[in-house]
């Protein structure tokens, strides 16, 4: 637009070159509304960009388009009903959110979870992490023009969703697990599917890596695109793969282990430049680590004597089986007490964090002993690190801004709560 204006001026003012010079000094910027709904932003994100041609001069993010007042809703719901709210935060890895919530409530109510359940949970959470990273990394491919990798690797994400279906009956918003354990034990089909996944997925992941990791075009496109330094990332409270890509080895699973993560052998991959390529590589590496964690969990389960328990013995929190509710008085009483919120919960406040798909997902619960939390605050990693986005894309090209956003793995549901 600017060039065309200049051309016109050139034609009309051919005789006076001075006037063209003054025209050059008065810069004219374009304002571009990237979003709220835009095919390249994968969710509802609005950024008002001030642009000089293709160059981004400044950006302003507007968020909140899918705000659903989870913190307010959580103040009205009994603890076991809040799981469905956490589903809808990071819906790419909802089992992590669900189990994170259950663990937070278990910490509040001081519930000891059997080892077997902890390992089963680790398997679920690592599967969720893989599916989260599959989405993010394959979308980086799509945004840089490589559709093929996305199409091939997505069948594995679909397969993980089939495993979820086997575990809890749902695919996206899973509502998986219960306070005190899991809703049901893994079925034989679920085990079969998990083992098949462990056997076949490495080849699929390797194929995906071969397509992109050392690909000249992909590297040229992503290296030095949307970088952030480690200091800046820490100041902006980054967490998860984005922080690790900048070179800080912070992982909640290692720093504040939950669910017996301290028993597992795995490395925390880190990057150096904090750019799109590093974020991609960190997630890629984490998928391999997750695979190894799942394998370790299965080995640990084989060694355990306990082969059947799938929940702790906490009748005041864990709903009894339906058939018992209809036949035994005891179960009926507990069922009624749980549903009506008659169970006692200590008066205290806790913070529990889990390593979600994109960082430290924290639950801050203030309990006044009532059936619902008195105050509930979710530390959503996306919400906190997305505010660095304008700074990260300043001075880069529009197409880099798209790549930066997809590599940061900003999930609209988690951003807006």
């Amino acid at each position: 637009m600017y060039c065309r204006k200049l051309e016109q001026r050139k034609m009309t003012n051919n005789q006076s070159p001075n006037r063209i010079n003054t025209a050059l000094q008065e810069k004219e910027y374009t304002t571009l509304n990237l979003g709220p709904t835009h095919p390249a932003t994968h969710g509802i994100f609005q950024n008002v960009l001030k642009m000089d041609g293709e160059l981004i001069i400044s950006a302003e993010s507007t968020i909140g388009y899918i705000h659903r007042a989870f913190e307010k809703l959580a103040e009205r719901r009994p603890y076991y009903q809040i799981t469905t709210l956490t589903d809808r935060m990071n819906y790419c890895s909802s089992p992590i959110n669900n189990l994170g919530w259950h663990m937070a409530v278990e910490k509040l109510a001081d519930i000891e979870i059997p080892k077997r359940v902890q390992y089963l949970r680790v398997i679920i959470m690592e599967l969720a992490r893989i599916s989260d990273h599959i989405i993010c990394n394959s979308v980086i491919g799509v945004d840089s023009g490589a559709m093929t990798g996305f199409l091939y690797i997505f069948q594995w994400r679909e397969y993980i969703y089939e495993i979820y279906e086997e575990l809890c009956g749902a695919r996206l918003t899973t509502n998986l697990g219960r306070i005190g354990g899991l809703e049901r034990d893994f079925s034989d089909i679920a085990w079969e599917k998990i083992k098949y996944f462990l056997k076949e997925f490495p080849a699929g992941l390797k194929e995906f890596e071969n397509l992109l990791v050392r690909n000249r075009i992909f590297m040229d496109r992503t290296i030095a695109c949307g970088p952030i330094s480690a200091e800046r990332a820490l100041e902006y409270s980054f967490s998860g793969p984005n922080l690790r890509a900048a070179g800080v080895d912070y992982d909640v699973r290692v720093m504040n282990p939950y669910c017996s993560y301290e028993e597992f052998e795995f490395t925390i991959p880190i990057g150096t430049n904090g750019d799109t390529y590093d974020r991609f590589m960190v997630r890629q590496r984490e998928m391999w680590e997750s695979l190894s964690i799942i394998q370790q969990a299965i080995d640990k389960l084989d060694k355990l004597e306990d082969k059947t328990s799938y929940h702790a013995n906490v009748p005041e929190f864990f709903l009894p089986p339906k058939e018992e509710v209809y036949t035994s008085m005891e179960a009926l009483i507990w069922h009624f007490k749980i549903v009506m919120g008659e169970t006692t919960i200590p008066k205290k406040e806790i913070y529990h964090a889990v390593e979600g798909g994109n960082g430290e997902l924290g639950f801050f619960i203030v309990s006044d002993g009532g059936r619902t939390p008195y105050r509930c605050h979710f530390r959503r990693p996306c919400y906190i690190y997305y505010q660095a986005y304008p700074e990260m894309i300043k001075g880069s090209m529009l197409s880099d801004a798209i790549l930066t956003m997809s590599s940061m793995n900003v999930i609209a549901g988690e951003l807006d709560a």
Partner: protein
Amino acid sequence: MIELNIELLESKLKQHFNEAILSTNSDSDMFTIEVSKEALHDVLRFLKEDAYFNFHYLTTLCGLHYPDQEKSFGLMIQLHNMPENTRIRLKSFTNDQEPTFKTMTDLWPAANWMEREAYDFFGFRFSGHPDLRRILNMDSLEGWPLRKEYPLEDPFRKDKDDKMFGR
């Protein structure tokens, strides 16, 4: 991993800010300090910049509302010292109905949106904040949604009566 010496932290803080530290509590899941509203910013700066304590990471920040207390509004801040893996929680309460805190954006740029969220939901002002606007709710919303008196259901609806389902 070595954890920081919490007793030392407690005595150092009391020495530096004696009456501004209203109470300390290590019964809950992490060390909690209640700080007077006026001294909050100085305490945060001390915790962040002190070479030993080095609470360099702002984990989260949120508003609190206890209508039954005399000091009904509060701010909860969680800091993290990653090398020593120690977390602490700070709280600051005020009886002001439209509380104004000093902004933390000069210490952590990450506080920007967190403070905007506290403004959006509790109506807390943060003096010195570069851009204090509503962030998740619409600009035309009236009231502060996470205050306890704000109804969960749309207050302007006449066809629904939800007094039966209150806490």
